């Protein structure tokens, strides 16, 4: 029953996504034919492309055709890349995935201990510092920090590699298998290329990591404070359980339940929302693909990309739901 309701929700959401983006795409004040034929084409060329794009049909027919095809996984062809949208998405998505994953790993790795630390030292200097660092993370425009980071760490000091995912000299040193360059290079033992990839991803990854860290640390702190005030903590202390055990084993395990949701949502945010980071770092991922397609009225690409984003969101929500059930003994018992 629950599964049925869930899938109905998912289907409804995705249909909604389709309608919204389709309508947006149709009112864009850009002539989509121009993107295909350019400015100089003769009228007969223009008319032909107009018909080829299906623009002569009524709006609802265009939408119906789109949905019909989308169900079979055919999102049409991109005007800009001349490739099927699905291929394009499969090609660009790993770049975003890799960056977001590095970001969330850094964010979690630092965010949780820092949050725990702040909770334990509530109101002390550490707590204040963590709080301010978090607020700074919320307040600085990410594209601006990215630019300054590039200026200092790449242009001035040469500590990290520049924009893009990899130096061209390494680009053909390995075969693309998963599209995650860190994984591909490591599996093929191309350590030079691997280090180059690390060097490229370090700055944008650290930046996204900082942003998610700010959020994760804050939530960890608040969940931990909640747990540390519980009776079982007091009982454990009375029983003489070591303080580190109380914090890291007992309290954190319970705080981990809601934290999973926080991390999943934060991950979803990174996957979806790195448009600006991708722009600054010339990162050939989903965000850049979408912005580019939007600006060129490449509607097939926009619809496909948006759908993918919607599915990721819904999927991560489902996943965090599932993990919640798995981790929380109370929910587990109930079901």
């Amino acid at each position, binding site marked *: 029953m629950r599964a049925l309701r869930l899938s109905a929700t998912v289907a409804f959401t995705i249909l909604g996504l389709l309608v919204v983006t389709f309508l947006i795409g149709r009112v864009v*004040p*850009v*002539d989509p034919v*121009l*993107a*295909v*034929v*350019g*400015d*100089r*084409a*003769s*009228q*007969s*060329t223009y008319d*032909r492309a107009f018909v080829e794009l299906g623009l002569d049909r009524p709006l609802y027919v265009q939408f119906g055709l789109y949905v019909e095809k989308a169900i079979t996984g055919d999102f049409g062809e*991109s*005007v*800009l*890349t*001349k*490739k099927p949208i699905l291929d*394009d998405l499969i*090609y660009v998505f790993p770049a975003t995935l890799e960056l977001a994953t590095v970001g969330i790993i*850094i964010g979690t*790795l*630092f965010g949780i*201990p*820092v949050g*725990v*630390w702040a909770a*334990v*030292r509530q109101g002390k200097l550490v707590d204040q510092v963590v709080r301010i660092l978090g607020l700074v993370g919320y307040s600085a425009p990410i594209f601006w920090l990215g630019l300054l980071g*590039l200026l200092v760490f*790449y*242009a001035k000091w*040469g*500590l*990290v*590699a*520049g*924009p*893009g995912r990899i*130096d*061209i*000299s390494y*680009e053909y040193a390995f075969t693309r298998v998963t599209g995650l360059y860190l994984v591909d290079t490591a599996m093929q033992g191309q350590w030079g290329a691997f*280090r*180059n990839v*690390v*060097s490229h991803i*370090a700055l944008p990854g650290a930046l996204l990591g900082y942003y998610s860290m700010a959020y994760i640390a804050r939530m960890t702190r608040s969940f931990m404070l909640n747990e540390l005030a519980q009776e079982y903590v007091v009982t454990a202390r009375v029983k003489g359980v070591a303080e*580190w055990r109380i*914090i*890291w084993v007992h309290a954190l395990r319970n705080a981990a339940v809601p934290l999973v949701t926080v991390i999943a949502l934060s991950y979803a945010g990174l996957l979806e929302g790195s448009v600006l980071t991708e722009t600054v770092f*010339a990162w*050939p991922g989903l965000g850049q*693909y979408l912005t580019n397609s939007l600006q*060129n*009225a490449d509607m097939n690409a926009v619809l496909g990309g948006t759908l993918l984003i919607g599915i990721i969101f819904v999927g991560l929500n489902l996943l965090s739901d599932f993990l919640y059930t798995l981790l929380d003994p109370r929910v587990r018992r109930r079901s």
Partner: protein
Amino acid sequence: MKHVQKFVAVALMCTAAAFAPVTAQAETPADTLIQAWAIDDVISLDPAEVFEFTASEVLGNAYQGLVGYNVNDVSEIFGVVAEKWDISEDGKTFTFTIRDGMKFASGNPITAEDAVYTLQRAIKLDKSPAFILTQFGFNADNVDAMIRKTGDMTFEFEMDKAYAPTLVLYCLTSTVGFIVDSELVKSNEADGDFGYNWLKTNYAGSGAFSIRDWRANEAIVLERNDNYSGEAPPMARAIYRHIPETATQRLLIEQGDIDIARNVGAEEIEALSSNPDITVESGVKGSIYYFSLNQKNENLAKPQVRQAMKYLVDYATIADTIMKGKVITHQAFLPRGFLGALEETPFSLNVEKAKELLAEAGLADGFTVTMDTRNTNEITAIGQAIQQTMALAGITMELIPGDGQQTLTKYRARNHDIYIGRWGPDYQDPHTNADTFARNPDNSDDAASKPLAWRNAWDIPEMTAKADSAVLEADADTRAQIYIDLQKEHQQTSPFVIMFQEIEVLARRNNVENFIIGPSFNDNSFKAVTK
């Protein structure tokens, strides 16, 4: 909380260890030329469809046309795939003879069959650049009869009128005339598409390099073509990498991550010129910066206002500051280097004169207009500079920015007041610009062709007739004189304020030599580059 501190310390160290051993790699492979360029305008690799700057340069290095010209003196036209050509008595038919012994990269020999297939295919596909050929009277129905194979190595090219021979030949040097491997393309045909769905992302040419890979908005990879008939290029591989930002390109070249930076702004020119490892090179290109006044706007339609606008641009200052090194002042519709180009620049900033003219037009207090501005750095900066000088004469000009497609959509619908843009010639013959700046055969809203004169609703039957006569003039000197007269009249009366001619600038590492900057983009060549 010691444990917490310890945990954080360990986490910090792990991350540091992951990033620490990394230093930026700063050398490109010796047999590979790496260029940074904004390649987002590439939407196809099919010569029948390619039009934009980047793709035409790529094709220029990967394909060969029937004829070519000397990039230093475009009046010198020579055969490439064609060994020679003869023109019939009536001037309507060209007979081309294909050079012996040339091969495509696939190993197939080049024959008349390929040339005929290429031209027929481009006309039947009818993609954007098809008009360059169809203007000679071809269409999908008649082309089989008009362009016909007469032998293994000869074919005839019959037009509806006796066009100026240079016009015909120049048109054949453009990318749409690049010869494709008919055998290879035919083997990839599907549903009568002339192999278009395959060729738009693949390669079937005979140039110095073959195209190995194109990834939109990422990279284009070319490899040495071992079947090339000319001298073998020193580079085994050439890669274009998509880097949209000029500042980023500058960083990359300073760090030695790339060999050539292709998009260099005025600021970068200044900074890179003082770098001992880097040389900045430039060449005059055919593109023209202009703004135009829609004649549907009653203020802008007044002749005095058109004239006044031409005195309200500080040409010299813009060319010396925000566009330094990127443009030269130029005020006629034919760019320098073209047959009959007019190099006089009668206009400069003169606010008093402009005010007088405005008063004459009954607009002494100025008026308000809008200017549609493409949101690129350069166009926006020029637009803002013009906005400032217009204000001196009491004209309030509001900028309406949009991306390229948006402003263009509006321009083509004639819904603008003022449009500022850049126009590049389609081929090396003067007709290419005369056709759009000085011809408007039908000024009605539903006209079949939309030249720039039409887009600004400038109705000019007489000038159109004059421009048409130039096309049929076989004598080069007489023809040049017609264009000079045309430009002089156009310069004074037209609603086009032509401001600058583009200079293409690139920055290369010192060891990279012999890159040729030609007059049009398909002439830019890295065939001979060494490093």
